[in-house]
């Protein structure tokens, strides 16, 4: 059997990777351990969130599937940070855990050039450091020109509850026992990570009257730039908010040594995520906090499981019973699935190129949790990029590398390959230096052209973008070219909406700069023939022009340094005067540009000067 691309793993990374390759016309095989678990959501039932929601928009802008699929599959959606500035707003939805995978499976099944096979991959076929295919558990060989590994948490997965450790993946699935050992054999550094998931509760046994209801938004939203809302606002399903009680804390403190993480198991090496510690972690680390917030999130319309966000634990089952019953409204709750911690192998992401191709084996790509990240969105965007770049490589084209000022996806991948990972990596807005440029609202303007260039955005969607750009420019000009004068009615209206009267004529453009004036107020003075989306773009660009300009200036400095490339064959041992720590780090990361080199911790500006002098001398490198 021969394929152009094999994708190993059917999670969120694998789905995007295989769709991207197949859509770009490459014969692709998706191998998954269990076809029924394709696009599964083993942890929380939500897509999006701060920063992550913007990633979903970016995936959509580049021609990926996650946004479209989430639009088809959610039971509640809201815009986060609505009261804050446009830079930090992001969508979050409660995705239905039955519908989401089902819709994704249908898309995969319908996709031309894509085949799906149920099997476990045990080894790779490698010739002269180049990938040739994979070897299955039954020793069957399947050949291909490129392979993308998106194995999630399944590499040597251990589920841990109290003092027990079982070799299995989420849902009791069979883990992959040999692949990570084989990767080690080829020269990959393997790290061990851990995460966890909370209990699922039967919703019929919860007294919701003791909780605070959290509704979805009352205006329509979509993740995708191309879909119309498929839901009804009034049919959205709410979430519920509760808090832990002093009794909960007492139970946890008394049983701390039974938790896998606190003595129940003494052979834990995995490093857990800082951003989502287990409830016992929170109670130990934040001992003076009287209560912790928990969300009760519905998993699906089609079954009764309620997910307790914030209550992940590795306590034994009997303690979990007591803990759950100490929560308000859950006194008589029935636990349908117990919480657990999971340990798994991942590769050291410093061994990746910015294209997500591995430095060790040519045409081998990795994406998702195998690279040390956490989260469906983080996985999906890497899958998309790996799929695009594997395809471009087969087409003999330059890879798509997004910069830190172009996309959160760029921030994520650059962090992975430059800083490496110690605990599972989650995207945060705080990780982005230029987040004012990386907004929810402008993801299409930032990335659609790139999606079109790589061939995942069709002509129709591309034309729509060009129309949008023209419209924005037109409205902008209209506002610049039209003035209002201090007539009585004008000033009366301005005072009415809480602004101050004008003394001289003022362009609508300048009027909109006033913080209290929005684009809808402007409509009072002039007819603006455009949809809200376009008007919003215009408004943001005018209102925050000063800040955006500043961010662009900072970004330009960064891009300048990114454009100073470092030859791939550079031998750092030949550079004298380089501090030994810097030399070691540079050898490990092998940055592609001076800009990337500067972001490596332990490499200081003096080292960079020496490096640049060396480049000039050895490569006649231009300092431009």
């Amino acid at each position, binding site marked *: 059997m021969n394929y152009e691309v094999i994708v190993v793993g059917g999670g969120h990374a694998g789905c995007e990777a295989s769709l991207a390759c197949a859509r770009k016309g490459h014969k692709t095989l998706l191998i998954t351990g269990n076809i029924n678990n394709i696009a599964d959501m083993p*942890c*929380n039932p939500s897509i999006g969130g*701060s*920063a992550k929601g913007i990633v979903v928009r970016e995936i959509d802008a580049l021609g990926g599937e996650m946004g479209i699929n989430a639009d088809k599959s959610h039971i509640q959606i809201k815009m*986060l*940070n609505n*009261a*804050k*500035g*446009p*830079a*930090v707003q992001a969508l979050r939805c409660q995705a239905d855990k039955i519908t989401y995978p089902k819709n994704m499976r249908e898309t995969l099944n319908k996709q031309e050039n894509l085949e799906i096979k149920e099997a476990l991959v045990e080894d790779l076929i490698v010739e002269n450091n180049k990938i040739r295919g994979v070897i299955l558990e039954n020793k069957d060989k399947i050949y291909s020109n490129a392979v993308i590994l998106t194995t999630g948490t399944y590499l040597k997965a251990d589920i841990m509850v109290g003092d027990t450790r079982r070799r299995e993946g989420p849902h009791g699935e069979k883990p992959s026992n040999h692949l990570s050992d084989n990767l080690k054999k080829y020269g990959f550094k393997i790290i061990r990570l851990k995460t*966890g*998931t*909370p209990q699922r509760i039967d919703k019929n046994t919860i007294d919701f009257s003791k909780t605070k209801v*959290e509704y979805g938004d009352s205006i329509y939203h979509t993740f995708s730039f191309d879909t119309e809302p498929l839901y009804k606002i009034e049919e959205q399903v709410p979430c519920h*908010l509760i808090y832990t009680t002093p009794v909960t804390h007492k139970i946890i403190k008394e049983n701390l040594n039974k938790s896998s993480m606190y003595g129940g198991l003494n052979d834990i090496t995995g490093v857990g995520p*800082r*951003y*989502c*510690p*287990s409830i016992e*972690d*929170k109670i130990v*680390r*934040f001992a003076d*906090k009287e209560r*912790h*917030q928990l*969300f009760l999130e519905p998993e699906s319309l089609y079954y009764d499981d309620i997910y307790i*966000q*914030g209550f*992940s634990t590795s306590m034994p089952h009997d303690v979990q019973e007591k803990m759950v019953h100490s929560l308000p409204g859950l006194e008589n709750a029935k636990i349908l699935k117990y919480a657990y911690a999971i340990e798994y192998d991942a590769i050291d992401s410093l061994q990746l190129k910015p294209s997500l191709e591995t430095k060790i084996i040519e045409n081998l790509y990795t994406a998702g949790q195998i690279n040390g990240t956490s989260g469906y969105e983080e996985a999906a965007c890497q899958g998309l990029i790996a799929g695009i770049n594997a395809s471009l490589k087969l087409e003999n084209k330059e890879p798509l590398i997004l910069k830190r000022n172009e996309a959160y996806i760029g921030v994520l991948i650059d962090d992975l390959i430059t*800083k490496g990972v110690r605990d599972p990596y989650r995207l*945060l*807005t*705080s*990780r982005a*230096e230029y987040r*004012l440029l990386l907004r929810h609202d402008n993801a299409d303007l930032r990335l659609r052209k790139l999606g079109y260039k790589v061939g995942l955005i069709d002509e129709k969607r591309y034309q729509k973008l060009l129309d949008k750009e023209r419209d924005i420019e037109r409205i902008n000009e209209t506002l610049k070219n039209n003035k209002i004068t201090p007539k009585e009615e004008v000033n009366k209206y301005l005072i009415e909406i809480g602004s101050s009267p004008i003394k001289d004529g003022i362009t609508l453009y300048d009027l909109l700069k006033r*913080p*209290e004036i929005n684009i809808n107020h402007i409509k009072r003075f002039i007819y603006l023939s455009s949809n809200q989306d376009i008007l919003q773009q215009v408004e943001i660009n005018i209102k*925050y022009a000063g*800040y955006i300009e*500043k*961010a662009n200036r900072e970004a330009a400095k960064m891009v*300048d340094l990114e454009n100073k490339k470092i030859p791939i064959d550079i031998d750092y041992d030949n550079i*004298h*005067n380089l501090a030994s720590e810097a030399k070691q780090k540079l050898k490990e990361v092998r940055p592609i540009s001076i800009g990337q080199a500067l972001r490596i*911790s332990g490499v200081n*500006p*003096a080292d960079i*000067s*020496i490096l*640049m*002098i*060396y480049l*000039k*001398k050895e490569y006649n490198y231009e*300092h431009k």
Partner: protein
Amino acid sequence: MNDTIAAISTSLGVGAISIIRVSGDDSIKIVNTIFKGQNLNLVDSHTIHYGHIVENEKIIDEVLVSVMRKPKTFTTEDVVEINCHGGITTTNKVLELLLMNGCRLAEPGEFTKRAFLNGRIDLLEAEAIGDLINSKSEKARIIAINQMQGKTSNMIRILRKKILEVLANIEVNIDYPEYEDILVMTNDIILPKIKEIENDIKEILNNSENGKIIKEGIKTIIIGRPNVGKSSLLNNLLDEEKAIVTDIAGTTRDIVEGQILIDGILLNLIDTAGIRKTDDIVEKIGVEKSYNLIEKANLIIYMLNNNEEINNEDIEILNKIKNKNYIVIINKMDLDNNLNIDKLSSLIDQNNIIMMCINKNIGIDRLKEKIKNMFNLEKLETEDYNFLTNARSISILKETLILISNIYISIEKNIPIDMVEIDIKKVWELLGEIIGETYQDELINQLFSQFCLGK
């Protein structure tokens, strides 16, 4: 495109003229903005022009400016050299103005580096330059750390921590909006915090004693009874070749009689108008006024006569100066000893007593050594970048104050907090630059240690 760099390219304090070199695409434009004279944008290449460096119409220095357009310059970029005449204080002020107007302070060796990278210098020199940059920046780093040690850097560290907590709180609100137990930062809440931060920065600017000393020199007074040898000491220190006598009014509020450079440390002798003439400042202006002078001074040199016993007035003044930087000189060691040294030692720190015989040139070296040690600036010597480091710190601090004034405007306009935060973050980063801490992940770490977040 290269940014425009500037630095003082002559050793400070040696010779009366200092040259500031500016190189880069905007060098002519930037110098022109602070230069009153011909329009430098229009002059021919490789020409020299007379004029003044001005700040808000006020003349800072009388200068000669050489304009050299690329490519026939040292760096092959546009280069401007400013010949300053006003001594260290004004040269630093001119450099500061350049930095405020868009120049970046050159790193040690950066002009040479540019010359090299632009193909101006032989490739074979590469290794040597590498060594140079390495050693220079290492030294610069040590000096920067030494210089900032103690109070100021600690203040900056505490201040950054304060800012970091505000930042982490704003960030956590953004990244975890659903956490209702966490304080939601608003412009109203941060306003007093920003005020506090602003005050701290202003205090650092004012209190940065080291900074002031480097920038303006050590305010020094020499006092003592008539005929104790004050003018002999002064004349001895005022080695005419090294002395920089400035008479530019308004550079400092105090009247500076003269400046003495001791191995790179600048002593400003303040209000010593009387010393040379009447030889008795205490008698002339009275004890009351000399107390005021003592309050203002960074260094008090109190002179006693080996031949005379300590009187009550001496004791009173010694008590007054013992909480300041002071040196007590017992002069005329060649005469009979009538001064009770034990009694003196019981009043002040023995380590601060120096025996001298100025007429025979005995003890001068020890005095100089003592001054150097006292200000912990032995590393300063006459290397240029010590002063530069400081001009840089001060210009960074001033930049943070500009940002803070922007923050006030934004808060007033009710700009969303995540936008206001951009400037707050920049203040935090700039302060980090001063003390050499710019570690992006610090914020992420703070986020997770300050707040309890989980799934």
